[in-house]
């Protein structure tokens, strides 16, 4: 209790609160502007923290991380361009809601459920960090491979039109990410002797190209031929979601928060897989799955609850095992280490006060997020009032800045352009984009975990079937694929019947 009180004193100084607030704003800005990602924001914030005291420094980084994770939903909902890979699933229903004039409801819902998810995961972490980290240790390469494969199987739920097209899109995503130097053996793969390709395709750069460039092309196309509609100005009332709406979905939020926390706790997975799993979970257990992809509020609630629950989840392996879950938490880890806080099992003995202070900083960060975002919605929706052609030019500039700053390389700007044009082609061919990003996020993890598992077992597949956890997830993946295949076959059969009768 003494520790807790000291922690309160450390975390609630005006300086520390200011640091959280500043971090949250930076994170929100980077997360919400298409093209900019909060991983870049964290990399920029890190050197600033070197000269600060420990608690404000960590608070600044955590504020940026959490603010960025939440902010990613803003451009996903308003423009259909996710601010972070974790917000890619939010596009599926958030953007249709905007087109129906329900942008502010979607935004408000996203903020509230993000906070719920975040606080939920923090509570789980405080109560059961030891238990959860023990479970997390049990996730070895074989188990993580199985889990990631299960994540891939959600492609089935994303491609409502055609299972085949969704799978093709997923494979394209997997394919792109194998370009570059192989992480395990160090061989060049499909680099054609180019130094720039050695680095591989950056996920963030590709994401910007996949979602933002088609938006720009379409706007230009329609503007040049006078087909551009006036922006939907009628929908700018800043309505907030009602309490009843939140209450009706409380159980869904709880389940998705649990998914997010669990996924976050397993190192090497991260926000995107949690968001997609939560989305497909919500769709599968919905009484009206056909509404998904057409502006169902549940399609915003599920991924947004889950991706913010990941923030608390990733803190578990980060603090108790010293293993970062994604590039963003790797930067938080560097910040902790530089301030002399070595994460790992001893942290809870040696720096208990700091750990409590971190918890408090997370709560403060969510208070800021609620305030900033709910106030901000009134401003955010004005983005829709900007003439589309001007907006497209602005987004173009932002995307180029974003692609460039990821690795300070003009080559990334070129790849963003080329990927974007190809993405536009895919969209026109009726091949969905979301599975591509899913393949890109999960592909590298899937491959490296499988290969490490094989190294461990000496090439025997028994490493999978002797592990109940791995078998559980492999079984789930098979189940999802089977169910989807039978559904689409049945739909096909009934359609054939209809067309015969007609």
């Amino acid at each position: 209790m003494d520790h807790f009180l000291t922690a309160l004193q450390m975390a609630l100084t005006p300086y520390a609160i200011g640091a959280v607030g500043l971090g949250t704003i930076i994170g929100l800005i980077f997360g919400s502007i298409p093209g900019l990602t909060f991983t870049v924001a964290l990399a920029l914030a890190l050197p600033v923290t070197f000269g600060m005291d420990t608690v404000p420094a960590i608070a600044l980084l955590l504020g940026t991380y959490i603010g960025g994770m939440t902010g990613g939903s803003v451009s996903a909902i308003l423009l259909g361009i996710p601010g972070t890979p974790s917000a890619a699933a939010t596009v599926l229903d958030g953007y249709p809601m905007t087109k129906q004039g329900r942008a502010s409801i979607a935004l408000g819902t996203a903020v509230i459920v993000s906070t719920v998810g975040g606080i939920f995961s923090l509570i789980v972490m405080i109560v059961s960090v030891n238990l959860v980290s023990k479970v997390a240790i049990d996730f070895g390469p074989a188990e993580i491979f199985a889990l990631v494969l299960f994540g891939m199987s959600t492609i089935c739920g994303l491609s409502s039109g055609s299972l085949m097209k969704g799978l093709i899109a997923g494979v394209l995503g997997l394919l792109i990410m194998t370009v570059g130097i192989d992480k395990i053996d160090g061989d060049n793969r499909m680099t054609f002797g180019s130094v720039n390709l050695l680095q591989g395709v950056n996920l963030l750069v590709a994401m910007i190209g996949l979602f933002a460039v088609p938006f720009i092309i379409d706007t230009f196309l329609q503007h040049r031929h006078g087909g551009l509609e006036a922006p939907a100005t009628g929908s700018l009332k800043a309505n907030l979601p009602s309490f009843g709406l939140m209450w009706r979905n409380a159980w869904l939020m709880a389940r998705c928060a649990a998914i997010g926390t669990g996924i976050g706790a397993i190192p090497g997975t991260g926000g995107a897989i949690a968001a997609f799993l939560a989305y497909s979970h919500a769709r599968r257990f919905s009484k009206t799955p056909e509404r998904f992809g057409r502006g169902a509020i549940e399609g915003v609630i599920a991924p947004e609850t889950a991706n913010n629950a990941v923030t608390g989840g990733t803190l578990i392996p980060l603090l108790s095992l010293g293993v970062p879950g994604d590039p963003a938490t790797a930067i938080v880890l560097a910040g902790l280490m530089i301030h002399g806080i070595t994460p790992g099992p001893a942290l809870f003995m040696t720096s208990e006060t700091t750990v409590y202070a971190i918890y408090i900083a997370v709560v403060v960060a969510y208070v800021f997020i609620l305030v900033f975002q709910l106030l901000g919605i009134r401003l955010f929706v004005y983005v829709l009032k900007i003439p589309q052609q001007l907006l497209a030019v602005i987004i173009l500039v932002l995307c180029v800045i974003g692609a460039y700053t990821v690795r300070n390389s003009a080559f990334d700007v070129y790849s963003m352009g080329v990927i974007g044009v190809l993405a536009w082609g895919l969209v026109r061919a009726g091949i969905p984009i979301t599975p591509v990003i899913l393949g890109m996020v999960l592909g590298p993890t899937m491959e490296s975990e499988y290969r490490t598992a094989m190294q461990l077992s000496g090439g025997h597949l028994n490493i999978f079937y002797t592990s109940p956890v791995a078998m559980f997830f492999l079984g789930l993946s098979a189940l999802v694929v089977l169910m989807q295949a039978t559904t689409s076959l049945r739909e096909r059969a009934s359609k054939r019947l209809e067309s015969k009768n007609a």
Partner: protein
Amino acid sequence: MTPKRTIRALVAAAGLLATPLVALPALAQFPDKPVEMTVLFGGTANSIAQVLATEMGKSLGKPVVPVSRPGGGGAVGYSYVADTRPDGYNIVWNSNSINTAYHTGKIAFDYQKFAPIAMVSSEVPALAVKAGRGWASLDDLKAAVEKMPGKLKVGISGKGSFTQLVSAALFDAMGIGDKIAYISYGDGKAPVELMAGRIDAAVQWPGQYKSYVDSGQLDVLAVTGKKRVALLPEAKTAIEQGYDVDITMWRGLAAPKGTPPEVVKALQEAAQKATEDPAFEKAAKTLGFEISYEDSAAFGKEIAKDDAFYAKLLGHLGLKQQ
């Protein structure tokens, strides 16, 4: 962010050239724009680079921006920087990996493609096992491995990585080199895998073990340097235990070959100032590395000496490709 640059932009834009005496020398002086520091690895390498870059930026007057280009045991970053213009605006946070990456065939060029700037730090790898396996020394481990039916699973950072090289040298000296299976882990996961019992031993950096050793969950059997490591004072060196292995990883800065000497000098001085800064000394303590500054000339000699050493070692271990 930098008012000077901003003002200059405004002055130039307005066409006011009334202050050429102030503006021109500033333009001619290195650096007049941010310096990009390519970082080859994550983990400690990245953390040190962050602190170093911040401190160097302070004395250079322009920011030094660390950019992560990981992969291929350093091959990605080395190839990238070697290809850039030799003007000092692209430098690489290098290490022994320049020697090992060349000799193991990852890159087609060797250390001579770079101009050394300064050596900055050194780190000593450590061999750890899970506590409670009854192995207290290298001899215990050797005895156990010799009796074992299969192979000892050793966690490393990737094929051809420095940690694999150190493991190979150490186990070779112990005479159990052919009973080792290497498991590659990225992201510093090896200690966790050790805890879970999926691997038997791991060769990683002291900072990664610190917390586990403090909590009594892992035992460090040996460090591979000449002296013990301040962070893990209990861990004996391999030499103390009768195995002649002395391998330490240095880290330093290098620029593409052909970088003007005065630019190298400016960077060297900035690096030296950074290593003397209290903030850097504090980071050395918390991150678990030693500060070992050497100037450009001494650093160049050290790299050349190491190159011969690793060529021989890799040849002996059968890992040498070129």
